[in-house]
Structure formats: C-alpha cells, structure tokens
C-alpha cells in the first residue's frame, strides 16, 4: 500500500466540504454501444449532474444517453499495486487468441 500524503489542513477540509461533490460522467455515443467514461464535473445532486453533463459533454452530438456516478462511489485499484497486478501478464501472449488458423471466410478478427 502506498503511504497516504500528509492530512489536509482544517481550512482545506472546510473548503472541500463547501464544494459540490464530484461526479463521473459516462456517455453512450449511440444505441448498442457502451457508455464510455468521458470526464467529471461538480454538481449539487444527481439531477443537476445529469443536466450539466448534457451541457458540457453532449453539446456536439456526442451521445444519446448519460450516466452519472458519484466519484466517491468508485473504488479504484491502488497505483502502488500496479506492478503486482498487471506486470505478470506481460509474458503470457498465449492468452491472446492469435494461435489459431482462421478460415478464409472470417474477416476482421
């Protein structure tokens, strides 16, 4: 585990408490595709977050559906665990399905 940085000052904590909470925004570009993470924004509640996401992230017709999730509800892997988590996969190319001869008729694999 990485060490937590020095704890924030009481003033910083108070300022943070006055800020609106942060929301992560996911936009579905078109029907049938996945919602993709596209950024974050501050909003007082979920309804405002949806409305502001519409203004900020879909004004150039980027999407047809929006999800917002409170950033505080996302649990992330620890950057300090990156070596342990992801490096062991480096030498296991056989996990890619590239060792099979494909029939002529199959394109785009």
């Amino acid at each position, binding site marked *: 585990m990485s060490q937590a940085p020095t704890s924030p000052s009481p003033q910083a904590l108070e300022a943070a408490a006055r800020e609106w909470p942060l929301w992560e925004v996911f936009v579905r570009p078109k029907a049938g595709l996945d919602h993709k993470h596209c950024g974050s*924004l*501050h*909003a007082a509640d979920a*309804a*405002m977050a949806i*409305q*502001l996401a519409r*203004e*900020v992230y879909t*004004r150039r017709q980027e999407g047809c559906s929006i999800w917002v999730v409170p950033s505080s509800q996302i649990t992330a892997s620890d950057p300090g665990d990156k070596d342990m988590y992801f490096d062991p996969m480096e030498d296991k190319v056989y996990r890619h399905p590239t060792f099979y001869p494909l029939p002529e008729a199959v394109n785009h694999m």
Partner: protein
Amino acid sequence: MTDSTALRAGAAEAAMAGAVLGRAASIAPGATPSVRYVLRLADTCLIHAQRLGEWCGHGPILEEDIALTNLALDLLGQARALLTHAGQLDGQGHDEDQLAFLREERDYLNLTLVEQPMRRSSAHAPGGDFADTVLRNLLLAQWLKQHWRALAGSCDAELAAIAGKALKEARYHVEHAAQWVVRLGDGTPESAARMRAALARIWPYTNEMFIDDEVDACAEANSLGPRRSSMRPAWRAAIGAVLEEATLALPADSAFVSTGSRGVHSEHMGFILAEMQHLQRAYPGGTW
C-alpha cells in the same frame, strides 16, 4: 462617474461611431399583421439570446456558464429562422442579418421583459441577479413552448416546421430553468429571498405576454397562430406548479402593461441595439 453616466457615455460613443462611419442605412419591414406576428416572436428570441449571451464567461460555475450560452444559441437559432421567414413574408428581400441588425428601435417587436438587464455587475446592467435570469428563463421558456406547440398546427408550413424544431429546445429550457427556480426558491434563506425579490421585479412584465392586439386577431382569423390571451391559463398553471414546488407565492397581478411588442421599449433597448448593431452598421455585410 456613476454606473449610469458611464453607461450613457459608452452608448453615446457607440452611436457616434456609427454615425461617423454610417455606411448601413436603416431598413423598415412592412407592417402587415403576419409579418409583425412572426417578428414579435423572432425579436423576443433574438433579444433574449443577446441578454443570455452576456453571461458568457460570467456564469456562477463553468458548467452553468456553458449551459446559459447553449440556451442563448438555441434561441439565436430560433430567431434566425424566424427572421429569415419574416423577411420572406415581407417580400422586400431582407435577410436575417439585415432584419437583426439594421432596424430602428421602434421596429423591434420583442417583449419588454427580455430587454431587462439581469446579469449581475455588468457594465451594461447594474443590479439584477442570477435569480432574475433563471426566473425569466422559466417564464419565457414556458411561454415560447406553448407558442411552438400551437404553431405546429399553423397554416404556414414554414412556421410550423420552425416550431416543431424549437419545441424540443423549449422543453429542455423549461426543465433547466425550473430546476434552478425550485433549487433556489426552496434553498437557503438567502437564495429564497433573492428568488422572491426577482419574482417581484419580473412579474409585472408578464402581463404583456398575454395582451392581444390586432396582430393576434389576424393571426387567429387566418390560422397563422394562437392569440396571446389564449395561452394564459395553461401558462399560469404550469408556472404556478413550479413556484409552488419552489415554495414561492404567485405574486398579485399588477395593472402595468409593457409595450415592447408594439415597438415602444424600455430605456434599456437602445443600449442593447447599440452593442448589437455597431459592427453591421459600420461594416455592412461583414462576416467572419
């Protein structure tokens, strides 16, 4: 120098600059009822867009800044389509730019409500508040939404098409504004006090939205569009519901009737036009 003398000096300077360069003469659209009917709507959208555009770079938060300018762009798009159509109905060959930028003040037929300055601490707009802006957005968006819905059945196919597109935009405008009015009205003591003050300032200007004249009579007789008075009950019901949710009392009606729709404007209109028109007056037909 007080704010208002600075304001006058700025406008005088703008007017003088126009007079010296003076290359674009004013145009005057015809006064047929159908042209005036379309111009009343077009100008209300146009001046409303201009006022909302003043928030650009000054919104309370970045996201809301973008939201207000998005609304302004929707309204500007509606104004452009309507002005183009008014020019065609008028038959004098005026395009949207000429109608937007080259008329005299008395030939603009927007509601007086949209001229009122509402951005806080702007050089052009002493006073005002974000509360005024979102409340005005709500009152106008609901009024426009009812227009677009009714105009979908207009005998004028072009007008019906413009209304069909604008209706989707207005539905969102109502939702956006209503959310803010409820949030602030039913918010902290400070935000509620500001909403009440905004309501008291703005409400008297709503009478004009529902007063008929010969233009309305003609529009109704020719199936061009609804008369204004016909939209009052539905408007009051919709606005009343939002105000109730916002814990705001519907103000008592006043006897004051503003007259922007007939071309007689408040003291603010000249300043808006000076700012809007200066470039096209000085450089006719100028483009990006």
